[in-house]
């Protein structure tokens, strides 16, 4: 008995092969996204955690003006501190005139042998400098890679005004420098900025800093409270010009990588779950309908004496085979895709051990979801059929009860040709069935939109941030604040059309228990190269008093216009002042705070000055500008916005777009699978009717027209509904989007809509052709011979 049912199962699978394949494919797509995305994301997190552990990444970081080495013992005595490491750190310029832009580096002293150093540099290639070789250095690996350095490479470095030629003996990975950013910048520029480690004695001698340190890193004892330690460190270092200690959350490299991980988090964890959820919903719907078509067969089996359990088990087995096959394929595809994505991310995240691994919990979860959804769909239908008294089910199924709807009452029906009337009736007469197809297609289209819209959002971000808000072409950073005169003199440099002096100071803002460290920008009065854009898109003028902050910062501090925040300046005389938030502006990148420059300088107790100049360039004359600026002794760096922008596009955007591509591709497959299934089920539900029409003498074209019209009646509303679903999912995704200083607008460009609508319509067209082919081959005699 069972073997006969097994044979039926086998035949059913053969008969439904295209449907089985396409359903399995929908499941596979959902599973593959989950397995690959979550796996990649977790592998990234694991790689970072592993790296932190092997590299002994510290927990607290502090910079200071200078302190004698003995102060380190005071730090070590702080409650909860397990270890301290001090060093010298200086920004240095590299004398590489042939480079396209000035190359600079952070020079760090290597721990002296016998210091009992905790932090570890992981050698990528070469070796560490020998203690007795004061001119040997190692550099961070990304810097070496970007500049094509080899062992033995000569590096001309300006140490405190003196040109020294150092020799690169190795490249290292450092947990502290996974991403290396120039002070004040958000994105690494490995070609022009790196880290070099060299003998402490050499560095101390060059800067006359023997017996002192200007940076310290601390490791905490298990269970120690970070805030308490930070407070104590600040008290110890206050007299030595401490800039305020911070934990990992404000350590630039950690923060950067954290931001990138957060960027991925929604795309890599939340969306795939939604994807699989949609796939599961579709699987459920399709299997329920497939089983529902087996009415007579179930009745026959029951009449023959098969129990309800046996019959139901048969259909559950069918569901299991389909979802199980989809799951297996999905895991295979997911592992492949995950491996590929991980390989791409190796270019962004330079962790020593970074391998893709499928998460066992994800495998179990996806198996449970796929099997569960399939079984539930099949179970509901099979139970309903099996519980019918066999005699009742053996009667020709009662024709579906159609009623006259509002369409007739309006008298519209009568004017339509019969094929249209038939199609309309079928859709309107079984609204739930039609709606389930429409909802299915809409859901699939929704995930396609949310998969594909990231590029649009990022492009809109770029336009807002880099065209509306930041209108400068570049910025010039001064060693120390300069008077306005110096800024004016920049305007005489050929290639610079305009220069605006900005005073930037590091501050900590507090509001209640919340606090943030930001670079506060004092802007010159008139709206110039930096614009303040309100939430509604209008431009604001900078008030004479009070603070203007970006909505990120305001949210981070939990304040709004009119609220008071405490400002702690972290340099110079370190004044503290309570200020009112005058306005909140819309910025999409970074946390910024602005105030009037004169007011800021007054607060700092200085004459009006500038630490940075925003410049507008003359594109025709800006060649060689680097060289001309290098002759200004006060200028440390000059950076071009365009270069920054392209680095932004190559890193932060690219990272998200990798996932976006995968999401889009798989979503497109889901759309195709679901449109095909919706139509295909409809064909088999309607075969008999259509055969009857053919017998009467309607042509193949006529009956295809009915079905295709019906398909259109279900797909066209799905486009509208799908657009709404997509919009909703994008809004949710953007709200969940992780990084606190990167906010994406919900912008869905025309091309994304075109893609989504195009995929739906293309799937519908291909499906229509397949339906047409199937109807052309409809065996009239066979269909009509069997009773419904």
């Amino acid at each position: 008995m069972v073997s006969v049912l097994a044979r039926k199962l086998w035949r059913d699978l053969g008969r439904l092969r295209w449907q089985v394949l396409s359903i399995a494919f929908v499941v596979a797509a959902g599973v593959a996204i989950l397995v690959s995305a979550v796996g990649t994301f977790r592998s990234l997190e694991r790689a970072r955690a592993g790296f932190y552990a092997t590299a002994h990444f510290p927990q607290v970081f502090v910079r200071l003006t200078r302190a004698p080495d003995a102060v380190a013992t005071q730090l070590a005595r702080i409650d909860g501190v397990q270890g301290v490491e001090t060093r010298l750190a200086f920004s240095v310029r590299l004398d590489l005139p042939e480079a396209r832009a000035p190359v600079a580096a952070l020079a760090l002293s290597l721990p002296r042998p016998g210091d009992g150093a905790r932090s570890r540099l992981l050698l990528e290639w070469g070796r560490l400098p020998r203690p007795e070789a004061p001119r040997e250095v190692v550099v961070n690996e990304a810097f070496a890679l970007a500049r094509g350095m080899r062992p033995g490479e000569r590096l001309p470095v300006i140490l405190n005004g003196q040109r020294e030629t150092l020799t690169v003996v190795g490249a290292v990975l450092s947990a502290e420098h996974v991403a290396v950013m120039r002070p004040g910048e958000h994105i690494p520029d490995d070609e022009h900025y790196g880290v070099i480690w060299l003998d402490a004695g050499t560095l101390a001698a060059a800067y006359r800093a023997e017996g002192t340190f200007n940076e310290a890193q601390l490791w905490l004892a298990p269970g120690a409270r970070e805030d308490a330690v930070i407070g104590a460190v600040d008290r110890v270092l206050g007299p030595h010009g401490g800039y305020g200690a911070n934990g990992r959350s404000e350590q630039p490299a950690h923060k950067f990588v954290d931001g990138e991980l957060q960027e991925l988090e929604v795309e890599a964890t939340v969306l795939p779950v939604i994807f699989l959820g949609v796939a599961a919903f579709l699987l459920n719907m399709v299997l329920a309908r497939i089983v529902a078509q087996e009415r007579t067969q179930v009745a026959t089996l029951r009449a023959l004496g098969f129990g309800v359990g046996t019959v139901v088990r048969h259909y559950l087995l069918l569901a299991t085979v389909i979802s199980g096959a989809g799951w297996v394929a999905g895991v295979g595809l997911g592992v492949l895709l995950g491996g590929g994505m991980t390989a791409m991310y190796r270019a962004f995240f330079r962790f020593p051990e970074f391998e893709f691994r499928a998460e066992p919990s994800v495998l179990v979860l996806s198996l449970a979801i796929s099997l569960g959804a399939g079984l539930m769909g099949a179970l509901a239908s099979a139970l309903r059929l099996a519980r019918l008294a066999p005699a009742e089910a053996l009667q020709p199924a009662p024709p579906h009860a159609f009623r006259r709807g509002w369409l007739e009452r309006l008298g519209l029906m009568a004017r339509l040709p019969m094929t249209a009337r038939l199609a309309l009736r079928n859709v309107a007469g079984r609204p739930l069935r039609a709606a389930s197809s429409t909802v299915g297609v809409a859901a699939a289209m929704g995930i396609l939109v949310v998969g594909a819209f990231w590029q649009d959002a990022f492009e809109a971000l770029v336009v807002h941030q880099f065209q509306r808000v930041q209108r400068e072409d570049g910025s010039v950073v001064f060693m120390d604040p300069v008077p306005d005169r110096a800024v004016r003199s920049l305007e005489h440099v050929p290639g610079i059309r305009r220069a605006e002096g900005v005073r930037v100071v590091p501050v900590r803002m507090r509001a209640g228990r919340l606090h943030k460290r930001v670079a506060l920008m004092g802007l010159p009065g008139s709206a110039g190269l930096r614009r303040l854009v309100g939430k509604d898109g209008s431009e604001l003028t900078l008030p004479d008093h009070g603070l203007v902050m970006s909505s990120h910062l305001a949210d981070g501090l939990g304040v709004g216009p009119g609220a008071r925040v405490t400002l702690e300046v972290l340099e110079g005389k370190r004044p503290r002042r309570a200020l009112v938030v005058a306005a909140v502006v819309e910025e999409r990148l970074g946390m910024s705070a602005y105030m009037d420059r004169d007011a800021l300088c007054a607060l700092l107790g200085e004459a009006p000055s500038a630490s940075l100049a925003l410049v507008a360039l003359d594109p025709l004359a800006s060649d060689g500008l680097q060289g001309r600026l290098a002759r200004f002794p006060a200028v440390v760096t000059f950076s071009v916005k365009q270069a920054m922008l392209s680095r932004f596009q190559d890193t932060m955007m690219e990272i998200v777009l990798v996932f976006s591509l995968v999401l889009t591709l798989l979503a497109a497959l889901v759309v195709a699978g679901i449109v095909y299934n919706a139509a295909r089920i409809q064909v088999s539900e309607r075969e008999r009717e259509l055969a009857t029409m053919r017998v009467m003498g309607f042509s193949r074209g006529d009956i295809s027209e009915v079905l295709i019209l019906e398909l259109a009646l279900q797909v066209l509303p799905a486009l509208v509904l799908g657009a709404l679903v997509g919009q909703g999912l994008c809004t949710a995704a953007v709200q969940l989007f992780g990084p606190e200083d990167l906010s994406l607008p919900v912008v869905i460009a025309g091309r994304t809509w075109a893609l989504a609508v195009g995929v739906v319509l293309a799937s519908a067209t291909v499906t229509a052709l397949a339906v047409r082919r199937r109807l052309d081959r409809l065996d009239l005699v066979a269909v009509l011979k069997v009773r419904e």
Partner: protein
Amino acid sequence: MGAGDDAVLHARGLTKDYRTGEVVVQALRGVDLDLEPGELVVLLGPSGSGKSTLFNILGGLDVPTSGELIYRDHDLIRADEAELTRYRSEHVGFVFQFYNLLPALTARENVALVGELVERALSAEEALALVGLSDRLDHFPSQLSGGEQQRVAIARAVAKQPDLLLCDEPTGALDVETGRVVIKALLDVNRKMASTTAIITHNAAIAGIADRVLHFSQGRVASEERNRTRITAEEIAW
């Protein structure tokens, strides 16, 4: 057998083989048949003897393996799919054991479908009046009894005023009384419209209504008899 010159349908040596893997079933083994204009023929025969197969071929639903089949001056053997479709739509009406109505259409609309195929079609009201269903015009199939559904199917088949009306066990799913009503409807149609009508049945009692009775056996017309007098539907002794 008739002269064949004025026959509506002229079949000679029709065979039909069904091939399933190694096994060949010879459903028809050489059928010779002429249907005269307006006559009513009843086809009797054991199950599996090939009656439905023959009807499907006569009605242009299927093609024979060999033989000759001519409808007036159209050669149906060499007709392509489009020509067969046109043949069915213009000349043939089918009635099946299972009514095969379109559940989404009312009785009136099921019949009116025909109007989209042929110009000369009766109005749905006229056709339904022929089968005595004038009062059920706007009911959907689910709101009709089996016999009523079958009468709608007949009305639909005759609405195009077919030259050939093929009924495959039209009363097979019906009780005696309802069967009688359906047969009466078929007789009325045959009389009023002079459609050549052929009815397959397992019920020998129905044979009395026919002009001619064909006995089918093993894929052939085994014998044939002509009724001197035809009985009415009421006279059928089920």
